[in-house]
């Protein structure tokens, strides 16, 4: 298909030295940690932003921080670009390689090193999956809070790369709020340790800066994350409405009334149909908009909060209120929601947008989204984190139809511009990657971006880390 987004021109000189680079890497790494065969490189050519693909020069899968450091040092000396990779579930193309780069994949560094319950934290390698931490600590009554829907696959390193969120972030915050320490390999192979088990770190908040830096500043090899005590109980409740406006206002007024549930998720009719067909979760089919509201605590606590929410919902013409009656039902409700993207993928190709808007703008932006989609003659399903205004319109299209693919991309960009114009931002949790790179100038001035790039340069003076991403190519000249 026609590619609207450009990658950096591959450096022919580096590509011509491929075999020498490979033998250089082979000296550093055990045999099974280096992939060079073209067929074996194919699984690494893209991530969950599958419209774009690039085969890398080679893929390395180191087993230790020392190996990562050696590889980075080698690449630094030979000016070979590096694309860090966790599980490759980025929806923004953040982990897509480029022809003159090597991919450093963290998948072999997947051990939990230390669970410290007295200090409520876990030290893990970057390639550990998000879910593994909660699984490891579940029997002790603890969990790791940020829960991206991709949590079965995505890694902590990738979560830190994107500052990922999830349905339960309304109460518990996103990755950056749940991170205590990092070990990182810098551009020249130096290893730094930041933070620790204390709550505050001395000096500049480098962990905060690195979280969400999209593989632009170094390779994270270890992290210390916070653990929380599991709630006594949790209950998702379904609220069905006849109009998106009612649902949107209900969200605003619940929050405005000082009630902060653990999660408030939104689905429109197309999304309800798609998810229900997949999960048989018992979603009401006769409504135009559905909210999944989760409350937590003991029975008494949940009932108290639920009463308050129902009162607010009633003032917005709620049509159905349905409490999950068992753990099984609750699990189904979440299965439907968390599988939304996958279930959508069964019926069409989709592009997932990620703009965040102020709550008062939810209804307006939903309406605007519908208009944009109509203009391009496409279809959309909306399923998103309503409590914090983080919207995920899924634009449905057929990837094998080049014309429609371009339309889908253009519609996506229009929607994101709308989010920014409504006082929001381009991306709430998926990151800029390659997908939203060229829209950055819509949200930031040249000086804003120059300042960000200058800070980036303090970490990576030669721009070897993930260089095609995040910053529009045309604003880079003097960075």
């Amino acid at each position, binding site marked *: 298909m026609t590619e609207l987004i450009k990658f950096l021109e591959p450096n022919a000189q580096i590509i011509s030295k491929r075999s020498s680079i490979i033998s250089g890497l082979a000296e550093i790494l055990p045999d099974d940690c280096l992939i060079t065969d073209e067929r074996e490189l194919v699984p690494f050519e893209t991530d969950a932003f599958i419209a774009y693909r690039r085969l890398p020069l080679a893929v390395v899968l180191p087993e230790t921080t020392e190996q990562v450091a050696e590889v980075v040092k080698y690449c630094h000396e030979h000016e070979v670009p590096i694309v860090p990779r966790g599980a490759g579930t980025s929806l923004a193309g953040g982990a897509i390689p480029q022809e003159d780069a090597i991919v450093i994949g963290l998948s072999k560094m997947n051990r939990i090193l230390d669970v410290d319950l007295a200090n409520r934290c876990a030290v893990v390698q970057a390639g550990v999956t998000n879910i593994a931490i909660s699984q490891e600590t579940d029997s002790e009554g603890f969990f790791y809070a940020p829960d991206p829907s991709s949590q079965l696959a995505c890694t902590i390193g990738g979560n830190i790369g*994107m500052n990922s969120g999830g349905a339960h972030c309304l109460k518990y*915050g996103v990755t950056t709020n749940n991170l205590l320490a990092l070990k990182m390999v810098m551009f020249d192979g130096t290893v730094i340790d930041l933070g620790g088990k204390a709550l505050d770190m001395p000096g500049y908040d480098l962990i905060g800066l690195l979280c969400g830096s999209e593989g632009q500043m170094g390779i994270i090899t270890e992290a210390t994350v916070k653990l929380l005590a599991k709630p006594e109980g949790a209950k998702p409740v379904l609220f069905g409405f006849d109009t998106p406006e009612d649902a949107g206002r209900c969200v605003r007024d619940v929050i405005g009334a000082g009630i902060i549930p653990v999660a408030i998720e939104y689905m429109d009719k197309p999304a309800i149909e798609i998810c229900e067909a997949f999960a048989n979760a018992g979603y009401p089919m006769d409504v135009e908009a559905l909210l999944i509201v989760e409350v937590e605590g003991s029975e008494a606590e949940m009932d108290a909060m639920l009463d308050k929410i129902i009162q607010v919902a009633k003032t917005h013409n709620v049509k159905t209120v349905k409490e999950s009656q068992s753990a099984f039902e609750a699990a189904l409700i979440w299965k439907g929601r968390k599988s939304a993207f996958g279930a959508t993928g069964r019926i069409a190709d989709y592009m997932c947008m990620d703009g965040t808007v102020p709550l008062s703008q939810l209804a307006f932006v939903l309406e605007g989204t519908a208009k944009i989609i109509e203009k391009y003659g496409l279809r959309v399903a909306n399923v998103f984190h309503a409590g914090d205004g983080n919207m995920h319109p899924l634009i449905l299209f057929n990837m094998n139809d080049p014309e429609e693919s371009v339309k889908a991309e253009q519609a996506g960009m229009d929607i994101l511009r709308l989010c920014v114009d409504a006082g929001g931002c381009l991306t709430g949790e998926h990151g800029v990657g390659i997908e939203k790179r060229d829209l950055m100038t819509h949200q930031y001035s040249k000086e*804003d971006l120059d300042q960000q790039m200058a800070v980036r340069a303090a970490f990576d003076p030669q721009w070897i880390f993930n260089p095609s991403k995040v910053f529009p190519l045309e604003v880079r000249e003097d960075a």
Partner: protein
Amino acid sequence: MSETKLILPTSADELVDAVKGAVKGGKVIKVSGAGTKDVVGNHVAADIEISTTKLSGVTEYIHSELVMTAQAGTPLSVIEKELAKNNQMLAFEPSDYAQLLGSDKEQTIGGVFATNMSGSRRLSAGAARDALLGVKFVNGKGQLIKSGGKVMKNVTGLDLVKLLAGSWGTLGIMSEVTFKVLPRPEIMKTILISGLSDADATSAMAKAMGQSTEVSSAAHLPQSVSGSFLDGVYDGQSITALRLEGLKESVDDREKRLMDALSEYGNLSVIKTEQSAILWQEIANVKPFIGRDTIIWKVSVAPSEGHKLVAELAKTTEVDAYYDWQGGLVWVSLKSDHYTTHLRQLIKSLGGGHATLTRATKDVRSEVDVFEPQPLPVAALSARIKAQIDPQNILNPGRMSQNDDVMNKAAV
């Protein structure tokens, strides 16, 4: 030193002009809010002082969105009053060290974020930096830079917001801040356990935090300081305090469950909203050490290690201390200034953390690294970052580290 010229910009444009003027004239700027923390951090020898106190006022506040935007020089008290009208609050509970530091000024919201000062609820609700959503700041080139925004979730580009939080005016002068606020809890209760040793209190606090009862703050006040709180009603016994907040039904329910879980620790009692509010305020504002003629350190370590640090220190010198953040924040009062190296070595041997010299005489401050010195690669990286934001090093040079020069050399 010739006299420092004071500039009080009344708009972001004037702030930009002031910094641009300094850049041109090669002048060093001391950045200040109201100056309440002037006695923390290293002394800045400056040509001009830019204070934000005339950049004041709440710019936007939509309470149903839980977001407020204010000019950086707005007094904290004004912000808190405005929030109280809608029954809302700053979840991170900025503490007020004015009394501890002997200042009668009112801190500004910019100063709160620039120092990342958080109170007892930091344990569960995050620090000031976690609440900060967006900033506008003037960098060392005199450019007005925007980072972050007004929405709760935002990963668009590098998070310079976090970098500015806690940078003590060394990276930029904030003109405007946007931050998240939360509903004020309906009620508050504090469960008190009396008579525990520091070590037992540490395990009790860990146990409490491991329950599904959402304890929002946990502090331990040894017998030596407990008399300073709540007009001395607990004088003569140590007090371990665990705070529960939220909807009434919920707090009552959690209170029961937490009491059950902690029954092994013996003597439990409960205080209600009003008394609780006073107690936690006194804990945050370092009440026991106000008016004492000692050197005060603020130490941050893993929660399980705080009491060990104090026990080790007590072997060699006279020390008084109390604990917040489940034992991880230790307020240490020392009679002598000879123990800096020892203190920092102990922290290292206990798994790391940091110590900030919070109150001392000017002489002591000029001899001691007020903030924890960083390992060389991190110090060098920090210096490179500073150089990319403030290339001529005119913003509060040396405020965070006495060896800026060393750092700058390391960075080259």
